[in-house]
């Protein structure tokens, strides 16, 4: 219960009221600066979360990407045969699927050549 005759309570209440009034009267320039600072802090939180997720998933994502590329290249459009029936060795596919770095994606030309070389008649 508030005792309004208690000078200590009156001082605290008056101080709080003055402070609240000063908060309401913060000028526009300051409010804008605070607004920008808040957005920067929220963005910092988002960036931190994305970095953490990226570090966790990067190697798995690279392997999955390599596997998808291998599927596309080893099974060109028009051919509905499963890989096993095409006669392609599964060892090559396993090597590609095991790749855990993004350099594999940079060797697409090599794999395209490999694919065309296999299609050439021997002899």
């Amino acid at each position, binding site marked *: 219960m508030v005792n309004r005759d208690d000078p200590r309570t009156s001082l605290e209440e008056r101080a*709080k009221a*003055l*402070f609240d*009034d000063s908060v309401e009267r913060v000028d526009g320039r300051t409010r804008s600066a605070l607004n920008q*600072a808040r957005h920067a802090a*929220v963005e910092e939180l988002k960036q931190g979360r994305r970095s953490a997720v990226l570090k966790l998933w990067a190697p798995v994502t690279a392997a999955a990407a390599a596997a998808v590329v291998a599927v596309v290249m080893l099974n060109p459009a028009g051919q509905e045969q499963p*890989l096993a029936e095409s006669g392609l060795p599964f060892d090559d596919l396993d090597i590609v699927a095991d790749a855990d770095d993004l350099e594999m994606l940079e060797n697409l030309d090599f794999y395209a050549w490999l694919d065309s070389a296999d299609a050439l008649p021997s002899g």
Partner: protein
Amino acid sequence: MVELASLGTAMHWESDAVRGNVAESSEARALDRFLSDVERRAFRIARIAVRHDDDALDIVQDSMLQLARSYGRRPSEEWRPLFFRILQNRIRDCLRRRKVRAKLLSWLPGQNDQNEDADLYASVPDAAPQPAEQSATDEAMRALELALAELPARQKEAFMLRNFEGLDVAETASAMRCSEGSVKTHYSRAVHTLRERLGDVW
């Protein structure tokens, strides 16, 4: 077979990504709401402590970033005392730098007659232009700020956190990194001193 496996894996990752995005948005919204609630009060508390608009803004900005960086993924109910702990640390850093600067300046030729403890910003006028007629509220606030400026640092912290920000004793102790008993002591001494200084004015 490989295509089906890749499709299933991709769908699994997509649902994880959606969950991740939802969590990220939720955290970001919570932080935005919290900072929006405290930012102006934090600025005023910093302004009263350091008596300079731009320094106070820098302090609040740094504190927001630090909270997001170091504690953004803690439960939101922990943010308030954590944020004000960071704010008080930044205020202390600012005041310490000023003291060092004042000391260095006092060693320069022609500066020796200056008081080492002189507040460099004491003579700097307030950033906001002063109205021709000072309202009674402005005068009372000015008197309060001057009285607060003369309090020992810990008493000033305890008073502003308890009275202005409304932290309870436990939260204030967490922000000030001291015991709850110390908070009560600092606060009661602050009130006593302020009553003595402001009694005639108020």
